[in-house]
């Protein structure tokens, strides 16, 4: 038995916006009979540039029907730009969550929406994202796996199967999916934004340390100071000593010493290494 929320049950038993719009402005069709679920989304634009009406037809399980119905509710009244920002998470969240094995139902909603918008814009409508088909059973491409993995922070083959169905058939593509995951998360890992590793036991080279300090100031410190009308500049790094200079309101702020020691140093120690000492130098 699936643990569905009351909202899923409600939108399954009493779905809204069922049907097909005559002369629609955009049509998105995804899935197939073979796959076990399919969704046809049609919408009509209003004079005000907003989606005036949206309808759906779905072949699938309760969560697929509920996800489709919610999709139509969510996009009505939105501009195309706003609608294009909608993701599977918005659908799942609106429903109060979906069982993890059923997340692909919300992804199907997102894909139908993307297809319908592409159709409206006269772009070449493609059944799947461009790219190479990885899962032959369900026709899922590497691009799609990559997109859904990044959007939903997925790290295992099982999660990919839950969200895209890829790997849910003959399972012979599991290794390929794992390779895609290894690759994208290695690439992401190289980027600073998820470089949140405990600094303690790590021996950094000078170059690494300098880079990390720069990145941390950029990401963690400057936005906070800027919010208060201030700024910070990295002057030099001498061993574990980080020399910085304050700008704007910070430079004349009586609390600047406190700002430095408590805030900047804490951040640098958290993200770079615990041995750092921050010192202010006058410009």
């Amino acid at each position: 038995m699936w643990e569905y929320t009351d909202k899923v049950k409600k939108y399954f038993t009493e779905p809204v916006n069922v049907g097909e719009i005559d002369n629609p402005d955009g049509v998105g069709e995804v899935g197939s009979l073979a796959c076990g679920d399919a969704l046809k989304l049609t919408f009509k634009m209003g004079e005000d540039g907003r989606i005036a009406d949206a309808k759906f037809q779905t072949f699938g399980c309760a969560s697929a029907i509920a996800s489709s119905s919610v999709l139509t509710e969510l996009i009505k009244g939105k501009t195309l730009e706003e609608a294009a920002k909608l993701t599977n998470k918005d659908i799942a969240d609106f429903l109060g969550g979906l069982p993890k094995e059923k997340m692909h139902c919300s992804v199907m909603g997102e894909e139908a929406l993307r297809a319908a918008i592409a159709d409206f814009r006269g772009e070449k409508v493609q059944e799947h994202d461009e790219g190479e088909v990885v899962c032959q059973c369900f026709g899922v491409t590497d691009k799609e796996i990559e997109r859904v993995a990044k959007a939903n922070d997925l790290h295992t083959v099982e999660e990919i199967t839950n969200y895209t169905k890829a790997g849910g058939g003959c399972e012979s593509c599991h290794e390929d999916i794992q390779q895609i995951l290894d690759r994208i998360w290695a690439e992401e890992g190289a980027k600073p934004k998820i470089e949140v590793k405990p600094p303690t036991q790590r021996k950094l080279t000078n170059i690494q340390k300098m880079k990390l300090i720069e990145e941390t100031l950029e990401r963690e410190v400057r936005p906070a100071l800027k919010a208060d009308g201030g700024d910070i500049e990295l002057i030099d790094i001498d061993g574990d000593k980080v020399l910085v200079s304050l700008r704007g309101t910070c430079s004349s702020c009586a609390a600047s010493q406190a700002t430095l020691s408590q805030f900047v140093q804490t951040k640098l120690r958290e993200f770079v290494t615990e041995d750092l000492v921050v010192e202010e130098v006058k410009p």
Partner: protein
Amino acid sequence: MSQRVIYLDNNATSQVAPEVVAAMLPFFGEKYGNPSSMHTFGGLVAQHVEQARAKMAELLGADPGELIFTSCGTESDNTAIHAALMSHPDKRHVVTTRVEHPAVLNFCQDLARRGYEVTFLPVDRQGRLDMEKVENAIREDTAIVSVMWANNETGVVFPVEEIARLAKAKGAVFHTDAVQAVGKLPINLKDTAIDMLSLSGHKLHAPKGVGVLYVRKGTRFVPYIKGGHQEHGRRAGTENVPYIVGIGKAAELAAANMQEENSKVRRLRDKLEDGLLAMEATMVNGDREQRLPNTCSVSFEYVEGESILLGLSDLGVCASSGSACTSGSLEPSHVLRAMGVPFTAAHGSIRFSLSVYNTEDEIDFVLEHMPPIIERLRAISPFWAKAKKEGLLAAACQPPGYVEP
């Protein structure tokens, strides 16, 4: 859950008969002795275990000494195949079918990964085996042939007695998973060449947690669970006395009810099936002749099984589906796929499995409420209007030419 429950899922599990519960109760209470003990207190309990064995032997047409009590059907299946392989180490080939229960199928798939050669026999569009293929598959080095007596999803009955003869002729052990057949079909093992047979208590109105493995006298055997000398050294572990007493009582009831199962239950099943088939774009999965009297697998095309089940469940009706969304994987059941059931139908398959406890009222209730459920879902389905408009219905109802998998 105050509404009434209409239970049409007896191939999944069955209601424990009140008589069975009553028979078991003393063994949770005052009669707690260990049947292996030397004292009278335990010895009296042992007598009840032996009485249960005798009742089950009676139902199967076997000698009580040929029965081993186990924990479930799966244990019986695993034990049987393991025993045949261990006692014939020179033979490394196994024959089974593509439509077995996972208790056999997954065990055999594991064997294939561990260096055994396994032949998985295909079935036709009606879920039947080709006897010529069966015969050709059995070789000199075949250790065991394992074919289910009746399929749990479609109810299709296989000619296991004939297959057992073919296996015997080539010196292979024959095992059958008869979990769905026992209690529903008359069985007389003495008249057959079947070497081993597995059954499960909870499919015949005994509780979950007890099974039986029949091992024909003279069949080489190696225990799967090793330890104490229980079950004459063939299955270690202290006997699960209350459940063994329960399955004995259930066997006694099954023997008494068999006739009823074959008349009343069959009539209700047929009424249900005919009523469902009166709806548009529906079809039965599996051979309607060679079939269990209680089982009916019907496909409602262009709708998805889980949605149907949820609609039924809201009305208190319990059934199951071979659709992807309910199978635990993302593909429709391996049985329907092996049969080549088209996707239009496989995803919308519903299995109803009846028991002696079902009534005519219940069947009428289902027949009254099923059409609105299907119509509502078809109105939502993008394929239904299209299929109707383009006249694909008739074509889709025709089984496509069966392609050798």
